[in-house]
């Protein structure tokens, strides 16, 4: 669905407006770094770019293993464990207590938020099937642990997730049938089961209409040949595609009524710096009300 790209674009848009932004990657960390001409991200943060007006973009890759080790060390673990295989212990705890790894990651994010590490923290969460599990981890653990540090951590994470002034979930999807169905289901699950507040819905990859395209098709000779026929076939493809897209956007607005941010489909795709700038510009234009007539911003260049 391009959520990594969208997350990075949100970061760029915020940093352009002068904010200090931290991007947090939880999965594959190499692509994001590459887009900014840096190597793969590490657990510690690294600066990707500075902006005119004081904005700054940093990123880091959080892993459950390192976060867990940090958590255990903070609890005085390193003094006690001594010669015991510490990685083994960390693995045992994380693998045998499901959800704990996710909770520790959420706890780490919460800690960054509490310390005021950045004006805005953008988390690239796991993909949809796992996102629900990831955000449900605190609730699950709060249910099994009546008291103790796990319960405490779970409560803190739940507090963060439920506080819309501190945390919002932005769902990213494509204006196509399958992804739209999936995001509707995910949206309801997150609201009902996690109690998190959903921010604007990001519709990525919206094809922009071309003025006069359907008239041009109608006026085209019925039996064109070669290049002319190719152009007409291409136009028909786009028109049909736009029609299907309009239907899906309308369905989404009906079934998951949230403000929508529509990002243009990039015909020369790539997570490169100019691409992120174009998406950031579209994001900065703000959401449209879901019930408004469907329109797609034309891609802005530069």
């Amino acid at each position, binding site marked *: *669905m*391009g959520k*990594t790209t969208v997350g990075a674009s949100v970061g760029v848009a915020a940093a352009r407006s002068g904010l200090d932004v931290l991007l947090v990657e939880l999965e*594959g960390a190499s*692509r994001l770094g590459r887009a900014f001409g840096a190597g793969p991200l590490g657990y510690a943060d690294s600066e990707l770019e500075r902006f005119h007006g004081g904005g700054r973009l940093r990123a880091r890759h959080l892993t459950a293993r390192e976060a867990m080790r940090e958590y*255990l060390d903070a*609890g*005085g*673990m390193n003094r*006690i*464990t001594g*010669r*015991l295989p510490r990685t*083994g*212990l960390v*693995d*045992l*705890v994380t*693998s*045998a*207590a*499901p*959800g*704990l790894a996710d909770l520790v990651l959420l706890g780490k994010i919460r800690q960054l938020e509490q310390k005021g590490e950045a004006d805005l923290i953008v988390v690239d969460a*796991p*993909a949809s*099937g*796992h996102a629900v*599990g990831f955000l449900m981890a605190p609730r*699950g653990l709060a249910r*099994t*642990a009546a*008291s*103790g*540090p*796990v319960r405490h951590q779970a409560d803190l994470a739940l507090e963060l997730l439920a506080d819309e002034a501190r945390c919002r979930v932005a769902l990213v999807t494509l204006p*196509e*049938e399958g992804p739209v169905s999936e995001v509707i289901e995910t949206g309801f699950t997150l609201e009902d089961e996690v109690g998190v507040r959903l921010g604007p819905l990001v519709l990525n990859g919206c094809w922009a209409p*071309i003025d006069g*395209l359907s008239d*041009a*098709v109608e*006026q*085209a000779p019925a039996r064109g040949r*070669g*290049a002319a*026929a*190719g*152009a007409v*076939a*291409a*136009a028909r493809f*786009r028109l*049909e*595609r736009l029609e*299907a897209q309009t239907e899906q956007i309308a369905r989404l607005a009906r079934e998951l009524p949230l403000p929508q941010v529509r990002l243009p489909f990039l*015909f*020369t795709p*790539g*997570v490169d710096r100019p691409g992120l700038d174009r998406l950031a510009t579209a994001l900065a234009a703000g959401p449209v009300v879901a019930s408004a007539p469907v329109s797609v911003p034309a891609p802005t260049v530069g």
Partner: protein
Amino acid sequence: MHEALLYLGSGGVGKTTVAAASAVAAAQEGARVVVLTIDPARRLAETLDLDGAGDEARLVAGPWPGELWAAQRQPSATLAEVLHRHGRPGQADRILSNPTFQAVTHATPGISEYMAVERFHQLHTDARFDVVVLDTPPSRHAIEFLDSPQRLCRFVDNRLYRTVLAPRSGVLRSASSAGRLALRAVARLVGMELVDNVMRLFADLDGLDQGFRDRAAEIGELLTSPRCRYRLVTTARPETVAEATWIGRSLIDRGLTVDAVVANRVAPSFARPERAGRGGGTRSRVPTPLAANLAELSALAEREAELVGGLADALGRPPVVRVQERARMARGRDALVGLAAELAAATPPRPPARTPLPPPTR
């Protein structure tokens, strides 16, 4: 031994549909084929008009000479079965009723992947089928299922647990007191309740490791045998191609081969004005909105071709099947049959069936 087709790819690339279509293609060639999916969204059921398909393989009616079966995995059902198979009387029930274990089956990476390959192995040895098509489980890393048997063994046979609670030799006994200390420290941080459940679970799992190890070896052998053919599904976007490249390289690193790449939903390409005629007579005859659209779509097709070409180069140039994007999502059995034809035309032929058809008589 049966033949197996394993479809791998990142989420959202249409892997489930491609796997189902490939099963249809095999049924069209006369094979008795079963497709196994682990998709929680039940997309295969939808595509095959197979709503509510359970754990057991079900026969799908259709216009093909062979047999098409579909099965949907329920990891918890397989898990219960596996535990009953390997466990002593009462052991499986004890494990299954441990609250920590229930959570483990849902959340521990590797377990549901293991259940997929376990079920895959079962179907593979089932005499009802000639071909097994596996829609590999969606996971954070699509390749995880290959390592899942070893991971499960490590989980069941956790050395640390043995060090801490079940010392069997003098050397380990001395380590045990340090182990207990560490355990107490962990308990202070994550809660005694959790540690209790975990330790009880490991005590209950005791003795299962040999059975699991044997099974893991068997499954590992199956997954690396030449009868298993690995096919990659991807869309032609930079992020999915990067992921597919990584998955493909991981297969190759394990000594496996990528049998074919399915580039799904690639942009259609349309006839364009000759390059030589650019700015000349050809171009001026095409009205502007049409030209603008054609230029955009052509740029897209070119960029995608580049990406897919790069992927093929990185993986030793396996055959590439390009499935064109439809303006609307194809659905239903007819769409599947259409996709099957596209796949069959472009993927490597399957080895001859075990029992060759009798020669035609005149």
